[in-house]
């Protein structure tokens, strides 16, 4: 990513976050035309049914439901804690992991299946070695 020294705008935190610099960022997945399984990230073969070259890009949903979580109090040096590591089933298919924000990190405030929105924001101020800033996705309780 850093090979293009001209880039100054925000970069996507993962390559399946599209439209990072635009006003319409979204997450992109792959859907198997043979068995409908949904995947995140690049691949050419379906891990569910083994079909080759049947994966079509799809725009993933921007809403979902909380499937599972943990509240992380100890992480690697330099990582700010606590935070909620959340696993979300997106409406329309696909499961992704991310930080659940705008909720006090206390199990009493977190309910399984609570509806969440996928929101996009600066990646907690983290920059790469070239000084580029990044756009990340987060979950927050549905509006």
């Amino acid at each position, binding site marked *: 990513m850093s090979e293009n020294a001209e880039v100054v705008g925000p970069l996507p935190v993962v390559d399946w976050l599209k439209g990072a610099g635009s006003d319409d960022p979204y997450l992109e997945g792959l859907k198997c035309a043979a068995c409908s399984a949904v995947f995140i990230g690049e691949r050419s073969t379906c891990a569910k049914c083994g079909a080759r070259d049947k994966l079509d890009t799809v725009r993933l949903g921007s809403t979902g439901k909380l*499937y599972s979580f943990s509240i992380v109090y100890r992480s690697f040096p330099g990582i700010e804690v606590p935070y909620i590591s959340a696993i979300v089933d997106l409406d329309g298919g696909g499961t992704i992991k991310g930080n659940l924000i705008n909720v006090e990190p206390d199990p009493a405030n977190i309910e399984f299946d609570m509806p969440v929105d996928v929101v996009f924001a600066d*990646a907690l101020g983290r920059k790469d070695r070239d000084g580029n800033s990044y756009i990340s996705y987060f979950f927050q309780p549905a509006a």
Partner: protein
Amino acid sequence: MGDVYIMGVDMIKFGRFPEKTVPQLGAQAAHMALDDAGLTIQDMQALYCGNLGQANAMVGQRILQEIGQTGIGVVNCANACATGATAFREGWMAIKAGVFDCVLAVGVEQMGRGLLGGGGGGPGIPKEGLLGSGTMPAVFAEAGMEHARNHGTTFEQFAKVSVKNHHHSTLNPKAMYQIETPLETVMNAEMISYPNTKLMCSVNVDGAAAAVLVSEKKARELGMHRAVKVRASVLTSDPFSDRDLTMPDVNAVTRIAAKQAYEMAGIGPEDVNLVELHDCFATAEILHYENLGLCKDGEAGRMIDSGEVALGGRVPVNVSGGLLSKGHPLGATGIANIYEVSTHLRGEADKRQVDGARLGMTHVIGLGSACAIHILEKVA
């Protein structure tokens, strides 16, 4: 096709040995297993070595440099936390296939301290704490919370697993720790990743374990009175499940392995007298009561509440102290579990002996994922 027997098996006391090398630790366990079998390195026809941290560094050959370079073939294998059990199983297969009569399996690991796992390396910026967590305590906390979601399992029930396993370890001189941890101590320990507190995470230790496997013919020659029969050996990888690539599924991989193992042994879960299962975190142990068929789905919370899985209960689980207190040297764990169950089947487990043990099961999970299950039987 004849059966395969364990003639010698042992482990070093788990601990921290920074002054030793990985091959030295492995050699120590190898010598102990050979002595236990009453055999020498000259009797071994092959070595199967499991180690993760130096997977590209010919650990098996370096062990032979410590104990005798006889020219036998060596297989070095790495399979995450199923590494030791995979090495053992490779030896089992070679004997089962009739290629060898007598082989050595060694599992060994030297661990650093601190958190394992990580949040997606690669280009750009660190993802840990940005796209959730990839640390092992968090990953297994999320797996536990899936059980809580489905069955209402509580923080207290998860914590009771640690109370039990730490209690068991007070009876095991080879465990890293021999310390009682009452429920309030476990629940009030530093929270690492809810619901796993520090005392609900396995201990990073150095360790080694080894086993001598022989054919039926060789076992009869040597004498059967301390032999342990391998009734089943199974290795699986995780079948596709919808969330698997985001949330490693440690359940399905165990369930298919358990089903195959019971079929191979021709027994059911009700026949098993003790189990050493993969309690890398307290949350994980709860899942595996159900995955291994020790109880019905949704009953794991009751199993830990009722004491059925404690020493003296219906089916004691992790009487060694488990990974939570005996310690978890990744590559050694799979063979250390086999040592523990074999020791009970031989009636040599002293204060922690499971009375009348005839059949025992060992289970390990390597995240990514691999599951190895062995069912062992008392012979004499």
